[in-house]
């Protein structure tokens, strides 16, 4: 085992720190989780940050240089995310979906024209993307999706509905999974289309979430015409396109630093809140839960480093990453609960209330965990993945 970094890696870390000192305005641009509305308020500063990163080649850091990335290795990628995370800088900026889902897919499966057309605006945060995956009848069982596209000359004609589409109200483009061949087996009948959100016949209806925000929407397709040249990958290849298009860095370091910030905030709040007549930090139950949170985050960090090592050694990894997703779930729900519990009676007061603690930040947080817990695969799906692929238990269908 060796937890040190090479000279070259350390030099890169210094470079990142210098860059952050020069370009990152810690007051103006802060990563505060998935609060879209407050992010939109900070748009000019976020765009300036994105531009500085782009000029450096650090947006899409691991992407090949010919597409505007840096071709950076996974250790450097981890260093970059860690250093940005430490100062709470939003590394991925506003193009989150474009960078995480669309760009890698286009680089791997796109035509030259698609690469030229779509990659630069993602890197420059000029165009934003949403993902048209889930449907009312296809959630965990995504491959059963029914939204259909029929060929008509040089177009596909799309009819159907998508749901839980994050950022649909702001995005200019959608990466859309449709069924092009209803006779093929469920995974093979799917294709992937790149669809302008201002297409005729496409309607976005925002959905209000339990925290009062509208982070996602329903999207309806009524004879929406999409040019065939906007198909990503071959017809019937849509499932592979999305499955393999994941960003290639699995160390979870970005999540871990964000969770660490949360924990630091919780510890300091525990010193300020009074619970049962004494500071919450003196309460045995609160202490146990804070310590449990700390060791869980450390477990995630170290699990991530083990995955990273496997990658560096050229070994395949896949299902193991479900381990950290499950731990993340536990952390997100517990953060909400613990933060309110340590406030005692004040834990029920939301931001608009007299007497609210820290502007009701934690109450809002405690109603927002489904974004990460349910989005991208529910905990029970992660458990299936582990049981079936890692333990070899029989499929349940």
């Amino acid at each position: 085992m060796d937890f040190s970094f090479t000279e070259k890696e350390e030099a890169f870390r210094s470079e990142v720190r210098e860059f952050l000192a020069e370009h990152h305005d810690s007051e103006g641009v802060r990563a505060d989780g998935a609060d879209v509305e407050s992010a939109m308020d900070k748009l000019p500063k976020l765009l300036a940050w994105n531009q500085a990163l782009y000029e450096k080649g650090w947006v899409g850091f691991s992407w090949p240089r010919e597409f505007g990335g840096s071709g950076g290795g996974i250790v450097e990628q981890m260093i970059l995310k860690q250093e940005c995370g430490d100062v709470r800088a939003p590394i991925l900026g506003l193009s989150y979906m474009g960078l995480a889902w669309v760009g890698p897919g286009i680089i791997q499966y796109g035509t030259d024209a698609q690469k030229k057309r779509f990659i630069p605006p993602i890197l420059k945060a000029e165009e934003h993307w949403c993902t048209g995956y889930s449907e009312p009848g296809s959630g965990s069982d995504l491959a059963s999706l029914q939204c259909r596209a029929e060929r008509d000359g040089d177009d596909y004609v799309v009819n159907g509905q998508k749901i839980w589409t994050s950022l649909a109200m702001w995005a200019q483009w959608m990466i859309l999974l449709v069924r092009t061949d209803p006779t093929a087996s469920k995974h093979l009948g799917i294709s992937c289309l790149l669809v302008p959100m201002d297409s005729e016949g496409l309607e976005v209806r925002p959905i209000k979430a339990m925290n009062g925000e509208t982070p996602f929407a329903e999207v309806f397709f009524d004879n929406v015409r999409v040019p065939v040249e906007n198909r990503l990958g071959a017809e019937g290849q849509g499932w592979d396109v999305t499955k393999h298009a994941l960003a290639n860095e699995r160390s979870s370091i970005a999540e871990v630093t964000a969770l660490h910030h949360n924990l630091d905030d919780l510890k300091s709040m525990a010193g300020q809140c009074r619970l049962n007549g004494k500071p919450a930090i003196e309460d045995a139950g609160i202490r146990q839960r804070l310590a449990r949170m700390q060791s869980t985050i450390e477990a995630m960090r170290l699990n991530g480093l083990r995955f990273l090592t496997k990658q560096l050694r050229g070994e395949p990894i896949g299902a193991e990453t479900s381990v950290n997703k499950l731990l993340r779930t536990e952390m997100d729900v517990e953060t909400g609960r613990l933060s309110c519990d340590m406030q005692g009676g004040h834990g029920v007061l939301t931001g608009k209330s007299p007497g609210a603690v820290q502007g009701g930040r934690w109450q809002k947080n405690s109603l927002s965990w489904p974004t990460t817990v349910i989005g991208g695969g529910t905990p029970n799906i992660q458990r299936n993945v582990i049981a079936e692929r890692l333990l070899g238990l029989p499929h349940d269908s």
Partner: protein
Amino acid sequence: MDFGFSEEQEQLRRQVRRFADERCPMDRVRELMDSDDAFDRHMWASMAELGWLGLAVPEQAGGLGLDWEDVVVVAEELGRSLLPSPFLAVTTAARAVDLLGSEAQKAELLAPLAEGTSVVTLAFFEDSDVIDPDGVATTATADGDGWLTLSGTKMFVPWGQSADKLLLVAREGDGLSVFAVDSAAEGLTVEPLQLIDTTCRAARVSLDSVRVEADSRLGTAGQAWPLLARALDAGLVALCAEMVGAADGSLQLTTEFAKVRQQFGSPIGRFQGVKHRLAEIYVATESARSLTYYASWAVDHLGDAASSVAMAKEWAAEALDRAGEEGVQLHGAIGYTWECDAHLYYKRGRLCRNLMGSPDYQRERVLAAQGL
């Protein structure tokens, strides 16, 4: 950046696993656990020949001079097989001697330890089982020129009944000292404890004015604590590795059962009520494994590894406890029988959970280390 084992370490792992399969399959584990001392001295001699007892002992003292990571590899595989032996006891004691002893003491104590001819164990805990100098009430008082008298009672002494030498921790002046004492010393009484897990052994050691030479003291009088704490941390990591191995063993046993046991016309491992619980054990075990491996590196490379070690113990204890309990439950009624091996892992979990500090205690240690 490389958070994994080397090819040599993987070879060592395969060697231990093969040894355990051949020399100590489950029916042999059961024979030993029902025997008087659970100690197979032939097997012990073979383990010594393979170099395992002196893995982390310096080469000049008769060991292989390897790292604590290597100890952890062996401990994990011994845990997986539930092989009864004083491996942890002796390895931890070796670490204490290596950290505290003079060159002469190392030569005297460590060579026979690595050869398997002398079983040495560290007697630190008492009725108060905290990992803290305050828990030690046993006293060492000067008794004439060059002699001291030890009085007190040591508890949970690992494999004390099989030990040839005891490293006795006593209060001397304002601090702690460690004395290497023959188990046959006059005034020293060893009583076996009856543990919930009979694949492991521990003893109570009563010291009724045991006279020891000042030369038997390892290190400076009253100054043992910081180094002793490091030896305890290392021992704790090795215990964690055993627990991770046992958790994995239990998970494997139960997973294989869930694949073949048929109910409602299907293997029970198809039902989410079963497979999800096994997945959760996997998550806990893999996380405990990451924390344990890191802690094994930390005890060799960081000045203070206490928090890393405490987190490893917290998770290893909970992973094994859960693997053991679900192992019994998911086997159904057969899991409650003596004949089924599920209870052996469960009992190992019950034992290890509370030895050297419960998960609750470890969580407090982590906070205390940050001044909270």
